[in-house]
């Protein structure tokens, strides 16, 4: 399996070796950070070093970092912690946002997946009830970046708080919580080369916050539970690595040019918008995503047909639907996502496999059916 090209980093990214090393060190050290003895203080040292590293990735103060079990929990904590009953979200948010606030008012996106600021402004000013606006930074399926600065400006004018799910953006594009003026920012370790099972919610100093995780008072009473010390240590080191990592944009651009050359009718979703440099959501007209994913897997290339959560069931992408993509086209879209250990040879392998698949299907009846 080590020979396959793993291009599903938006599902999970392999652990960076330096993060792994720090985790092993922390695992071997043991200790509960709340204990006052030497073993406890050692564990506390790992946690606080990582807090500074994670803060550094997004321009936050260390005291603003609340470690969680992952991005999903961070989103959940932010949405309940802000204490606003009225919540506005974009139409392309991750399930961990949209399912947490089923009564939220939905702000539509345009054909490129960018949130409609005019609608946002209008909805914000319809009532005077103070709201929480939750808009993600980079979309997990398309990589499209939202205009968070503009969202914040409009929200502020209406007295609203802002939460930003930056799980897919952090470490891929610069994120500065104070520069953006965001109140709550969610991060996940395993999307940037840290371990699964750890994430963080950055709570801007001064933003209202009431936790819904009660217990031993850890994380300054903002998230109870013994800290996942090794996971947090790995997150810190991965965050430091991610903040220094190269842009994948040129590799991705080369990939997209090649894909469209092979399949002229292929469509790259959100391509006219600003996107994070590692994600391509592309269709092969007439060929289902499942067929593509399976064919690519047999060729040793790992991609996905959409978000990698629980489903297993083939579900229509809510993100593409919100962008106005027709159902029959959306079911032909796959997601390709690059990461810290992607090399040009992985891209070449994907391009070759995609070409082989396209040749096979054009020789069968699928294109004729599509042409009919």
């Amino acid at each position: 399996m080590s020979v396959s090209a793993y291009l599903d980093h938006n599902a999970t990214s392999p652990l960076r070796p330096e993060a792994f090393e720090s985790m092993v060190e922390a695992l071997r050290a043991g200790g509960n950070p709340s204990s006052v003895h030497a073993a406890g203080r050692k564990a506390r040292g790992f946690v606080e070093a990582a807090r500074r590293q994670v803060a550094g990735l997004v321009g936050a103060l260390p005291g603003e970092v609340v470690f969680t079990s992952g991005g999903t929990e961070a989103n959940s904590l932010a949405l309940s912690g802000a204490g606003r009953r009225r919540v506005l979200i974009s139409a392309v948010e991750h399930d961990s946002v949209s399912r947490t606030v089923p009564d939220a008012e939905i702000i539509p996106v345009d054909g490129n997946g960018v949130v409609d600021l005019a609608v946002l402004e209008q909805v914000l000013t319809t009532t005077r009830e103070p709201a929480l606006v939750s808009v993600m930074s980079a979309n997990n399926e398309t990589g499209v970046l939202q205009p968070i600065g503009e969202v914040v400006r409009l929200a502020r004018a209406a007295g609203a708080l802002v939460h930003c799910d930056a799980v897919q953006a952090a470490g891929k594009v610069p994120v500065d919580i104070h520069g953006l003026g965001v109140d709550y920012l969610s991060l996940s370790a395993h999307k940037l080369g840290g371990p699964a099972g750890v994430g963080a919610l950055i709570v801007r100093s001064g933003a209202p916050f009431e936790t819904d995780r009660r217990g031993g008072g850890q994380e300054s009473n903002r998230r109870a539970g013994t800290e996942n010390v090794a996971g947090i240590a790995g997150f810190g080191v991965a965050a430091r690595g991610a903040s220094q990592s190269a842009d994948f944009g040129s590799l991705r651009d080369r990939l997209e040019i090649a894909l469209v050359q092979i399949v002229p009718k292929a469509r790259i979703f959100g391509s006219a918008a600003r996107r994070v440099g590692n994600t391509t959501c592309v269709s092969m007209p007439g060929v289902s995503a499942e067929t593509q994913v399976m064919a690519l897997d047999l060729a040793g290339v790992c991609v996905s047909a959409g978000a990698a959560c629980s489903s297993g069931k083939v579900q229509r992408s809510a993100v593409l639907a919100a962008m106005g993509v027709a159902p029959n086209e959306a079911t032909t879209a796959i997601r390709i996502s690059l990461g810290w250990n992607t090399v040009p040879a992985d891209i070449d392998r994907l391009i070759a496999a995609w070409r082989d698949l396209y040749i096979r299907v054009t020789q069968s009846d699928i294109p004729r059916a599509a042409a009919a």
Partner: protein
Amino acid sequence: MTAITQIRRNDQPIYLDYQATTPMDPRVLEVMMPYFTHKFGNPGSRSHAYGWEAEEAVEKARGQIAKLIGADEKEVIYTSGATESNNLAIRGVAEFYKDRKNHIITTVTEHKCVLDTCRHLEQQGFEVTYLPVQQNGLLDLDVLRAAITDKTVLVSVMAVNNEIGVIQPLAEIGKICREHKVFFHTDAAQAAGKIPLDVEAMNIDLMSISGHKIYGPKGIGALYVRRKPRVRLVAMIYGGGQERGFRSGTLPTPLCVGLGEACEIATKEMGAEAKRLAKLQERMLKGLRAKLTDIVVNGDLEQRIPGNLNISFAYVEGESLMMGIKNLSVSSGSACTSASLEPSYVLRALGVEEEMAHTSLRIGLGRFTTEHEVDTAVDELVRHVTKLRAMSPLWEMAQEGIDLKSIEWAAH
């Protein structure tokens, strides 16, 4: 065992705080390793081999966890730890059934995360009864029976107390709950892998488990949720719908695998380990009593896990003692609150007087504790207690036969 006992280097303090956290068993770390490196897939990825491999691993581990407690693997949900399990169990049940029943029963010696969750529910309009415990730390079953009403939805009683190690009568509590058609939740963070647990025989409906208390990793835990008769919960974390919708979020494969392996080892070795620890516990207590008078073990000594001692050293201040015994990692009070100097609420609930509560140490023994470490600890404790007592005017007065309670202290 040689590889295992090498865990502590000679320059490191002796770790005697196994109720705060346990060192990871090297065998656990070993099975986790590949899932950190080349087997890194997301168990939710259904489209490629990395995902399938991860899914298979987390499902195998789920079976190992289930086996430890006599459950079916479908009844085990992964969480980030016992705190989350407790929050989810209590709040989840309370909120799901709130239209029919709104009363919860728990005890005053529960872990803080249970008590804080219950307090929050009270603010939301639920009714909570906090049952007292007896002087030995055990719940009086008649007191429990009397507290149950037709509005009671849940009884939450911990299996083993984190400070004093006493084992509550789970089977009896379970029987009472089942007779009254009340759900029974137990926080088994300190019990799983230490004492035999059987959700069927004990009529347990919900059980919280922690990874790092049983030689597994931190950041992972489990909640057992009974399917027959079915227990329903309102989830706390929504999203991708993982864990049958009870708990969304990408599963951390290495942590799940580690918890599974820790449970597997515990299933196999619990019996022998308990016997070994019982000997160490006895050795420590005998050693201390041979050289020190006026020491009291808090909590029942019989109905207790062998890996715990909670001892009050009269006429000695706990914090000074802690400062003295730098070579021993022990705790005064539970780890989450040990940074504060308040006397333990658990000891207060046992009726331990404040002075005695202040002089208490929690000593946790575990898988990697050796006889030599116990002997060294006894020597250190004896030396420092003796020294501190020699400096204590209270000790001097007590030796002279003055009843300290009769003294009227001047207020400053």
